[in-house]
């Protein structure tokens, strides 16, 4: 089965935790991946983020669960890069 090398997510989350805290939490969840978060839009109660995860074998299920635990929700997967596992 292919391994996810990169994935770009469209995420909606409340203002707290901050993107710094969210990036640290996601990175703690999957030590193998690099997390990049860009704020796309800020509303009264929420923020829309573009979360880019890159690494050797990203565990998307774990990452999704962590985002949900932090109060966020994944609206869409905008980009994905998969390679065959060795």
């Amino acid at each position, binding site marked *: 089965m292919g391994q996810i090398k990169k994935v770009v997510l469209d995420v*909606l989350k*409340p203002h*707290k*935790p901050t993107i710094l805290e969210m990036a640290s939490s996601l990175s703690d969840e999957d030590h193998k991946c690099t997390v990049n978060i860009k704020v796309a839009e800020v*509303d*009264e*109660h*929420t923020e829309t983020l573009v979360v880019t995860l890159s690494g050797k074998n990203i565990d998307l299920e774990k990452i999704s669960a962590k985002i*949900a*635990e*932090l*109060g966020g*929700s994944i609206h869409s997967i905008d980009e994905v890069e998969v390679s065959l596992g060795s």
Partner: protein
Amino acid sequence: MFSQLRILLHITRSHGIIRRYFVVNGFDGALTMLGLCMGFYFTDQVQISVVIHACVGAAIALGMSGVSSAYISESAEKKKELLELEQAMIGSLEESHYGRAVRWVPIVIAFVNGAAPFLISVLIIIPLWLHDWRPDLVTLPLESAIVCAFVLVFLLGMFLGRISETFWLWSGIKTLLIALITALLIFLVSHF
């Protein structure tokens, strides 16, 4: 468990509320005990055991009032905040930190709100207990309890000064002045 609690308090921005409740209700406890002790001080021939029972009763009532009122109001507030956030997120947040915060943060706030006046009252009652246990340990129990109340009010003021990053002594003196005015009012009411 404590790190989880810290996260819940952080995302709901509850540190400030807890600090505020601690000072407000702690101040309530100190002034109530000051009022009781001053009242008994101006009443001649009152047994210390009677004073202790009255003060302990008031301390328990303040504690219970603090716990119940804070729990009811904070629980309603947090549920309202969650509902607003869920509407903005267009989805349930029950299983997230926010959902857990609605269940746990009101309990923590209620505990602090009840514990602050209770513990401060207990500290003020200590000289009365010591006198009741061994009269030679504290020879002037009511006077000692009143001084204790003034000291605690001053310390609460100092704490407020540290939070607001103003001069601690001035902040302590301000709260001490309020306690002195309270004492003066009790004195005037007792004598006229």
